[in-house]
């Protein structure tokens, strides 16, 4: 009486293998050629995620939540609110895309701008201070991520690969 089912055990196994092969890796580690085993422990593992990957992941989350409205999803200084800011303050949100310009922007200055706002580094008050909203770790991570944007825009290769000089907090 019980109806037959189409998918048999071995087909399910194949499906799982195929699906997991496509999705279980952390996005940051993608393209490194590592072959993940189709297992839960591989799916949850922190192994293979370097500290810089973790830092960039946190940075991306923070950036997406707080920064992208003005600085843009890809850091081009073109968030949906950018025009309004430039109308109100006469300055545009900084673009993180230009590698040369970003290289001249020292870590200490950048960290101070994020923590204490634009006026602390002689820039516009349109950039508020985030030092009471973000932890020191998050500030450092978001800078890490912002620097990775410049690298990816410039070389046009895969983003957030971590091939960036590490930003150090508190220096």
């Amino acid at each position: 009486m019980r109806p037959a089912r189409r998918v048999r055990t071995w087909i399910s196994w194949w499906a799982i293998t195929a699906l997991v092969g496509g999705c279980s890796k952390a996005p940051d580690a993608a393209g490194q050629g590592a072959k993940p085993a189709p297992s839960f422990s591989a799916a949850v593992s922190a192994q293979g995620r370097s500290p810089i990957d973790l830092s960039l992941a946190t940075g991306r989350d923070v950036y997406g939540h707080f920064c992208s409205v003005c600085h843009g999803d890809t850091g081009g200084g073109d968030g949906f609110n950018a025009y309004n800011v430039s109308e109100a303050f006469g300055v545009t949100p900084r673009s993180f895309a230009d590698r040369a310009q970003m290289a001249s922007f020292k870590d200490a200055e950048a960290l101070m701008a994020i923590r204490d706002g634009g006026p602390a580094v002689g820039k516009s008050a349109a950039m508020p201070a985030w030092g009471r909203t973000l932890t020191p770790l998050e500030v450092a991570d978001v800078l890490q991520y912002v620097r990775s944007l410049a690298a990816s825009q410039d070389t046009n290769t895969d983003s957030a690969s971590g091939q960036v000089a590490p930003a150090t907090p508190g220096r």
Partner: protein
Amino acid sequence: MRFSRKCPADNAAAVVRRPSVAGPGRRPSMRAATVLLLALSPASAWRADAESPASRGAATTLPPLLENDTLGVRDRCTSCHAYLLDPEHRLDPQPRTSHPGRLLDTHPPIRFGCTPCHGGVGEATTTREAHAPSGCGVRLAGDAAEISCGKCHLNELTIEGAPHLSHGRALIRNAQCDGCHEIGGSPPRDRLGPSLTGIGDRVDPVWLFRWLKNPRDYASNARMPRFELEDKYIDALVGYLMTFRLGTAFDETGFPAGDPTLGGNLLRTSFCISCHAINDKGGTGVIDLGRVGSKLHRPYLLHLLAATHEVDPGTAMPQYRFTSSQIADVVAYLRKELTDPSFESADPASGSDKLGTYWPAESKRVDVGRRLFKELRCGNCHVFPGGEGWIRIGPVLSKLAEKKAADISWGTTTFPRTLAEFVWHKVGSPGVYASAPHQLKMPIYDFTPEEAKDVTIALLAQSEARTPPDEFLVRSHGDESLSLPADFGRLVQRYRCTSCHAVNGIGRNISCDLGAEGSRARREWIYKYLKQPYTIRPMLTARMPIFNLTDEEAGILADGITKYWNDPQIDALGDFPVRPSDPETGRKIFEGSGCLGCHQIGAKGGYVGPSFTSGSPVVERFRSGWLVRWLENAHALKPDVLEPRFGFTRDQAQALAAYLMALPQNERVSSR
């Protein structure tokens, strides 16, 4: 969002100001208390840090042995992982890496240790022994560490810092796993599937056949699982379901023909897409309306919109105050534009459902359908005529974590023999262990591997062998419903406020929590807003629908919100008097802090936060006590708010509030 800003700096400052809170009374020893203060201080050191960067460091060190008798912790982990609290080491290789995220701000290692969350053997003196996998067979590192969050966060749906566990719990709830399995010992909630009473009068049988074959073919966000039945059995189920009829059919008299163009306009201006997506654009919480015109019969749609809660008592949808002709317009639009062109609907009048002839006689078909309906336990998710109680045929999952890998039947698989692997494969592909197809009872939810991972994390967090003492446990409101006085309660029900708003955590989070709305907004503003809602935050796509409330209804709701949904602590602040210098001081603060970047004044300013001059002026909307409290620390009132924490003092906040409340007069001056 995950960015709760419940200000670690606050906790640390509180501890530093009032040492007795963290003192010997709650700590095993004075030594621990001293180290606790050291360990908790980085957040407070952060402010000092702005002046002297060298002042950090000492505050971030941890002792090589963490001890806490209450939790039974004796962890030597910090003898190698020594820099967990020091952001300087965040890019160092293990074991010197600092701990990612902000979890340690709220879970300082000196109080919680390491092993309660990460498993392993705290007292071990070799790396291998120390890093032993947990009972479920995985090391509790990376995303798997969230399994441990469930030890203390017993039934919360949203746990800050544990996105995978939260997502897994939401998926479990959404799939109504507790229909067939006991999970968490709680009694089953209401059935989440729609009531099947009268379904024969509502839906098109051709649609129903396709739906049962694969619900996600109809709507990508469909909640119902697939059962992988052969066509003839699906047909039998359709035959049986079509016998669920109301005594009297819905009748169309009193409704005009309807104009689809007007209906389309009304659909848009009523913000139906705040909840319903239309072909994947719009809200995701409820079923996509993209092809609803092929699913539901016209008479039913007319009556659903006219008397929503009589026709479908369990629905989350509010009762709109449309006129008969407006309803006819909307239905005309749905039936004309939102259809599935790929199939021809059945003709309800002829009684034929145009399906294949799988069964020699209709009575046989219905009979088979009835038996299948029972066997598949459809009634565990749906109310149906003559419905029985819950018959849970699945294994108990409340203490899944205690299950031994040796007790598991692995079928013909060769997976690593750990509990975690077993659960993950089962969730992702329920048939994987069945030796014959008919042995499989569980339907298929089509979870992606990522979703299966999150569900697995949530299931492995189900344990009854809880070691943490009560003081560590965190319980949520669960499924409590609001209890409100008669008239107010009736209207909150009628307009289904909690389908979008939570009230002190009860309800859904599509819009803001209204738990302290009465302390935030003035009664007159609430009344006006309810009568004529407008866009408060331009950034958001969901909008409050226009309910066309009567004056009386808006009055009852405004009174109720003011009286019952408030925060006595904020109310106790009262209204602040405006000092003569305040507006000018406030203006300087406003300009110096870049507020205009997100908020609009006059024609200038950003679109991130609410505008201060379009819609209602600040002075009309807010109570000044709330405004001052918000400006002092917005994150204490709304943890995920985008507004940065400026750290304004009471005086500064008061001045700023006075400036904002004086805005209509100052508009031209301030927007220069």
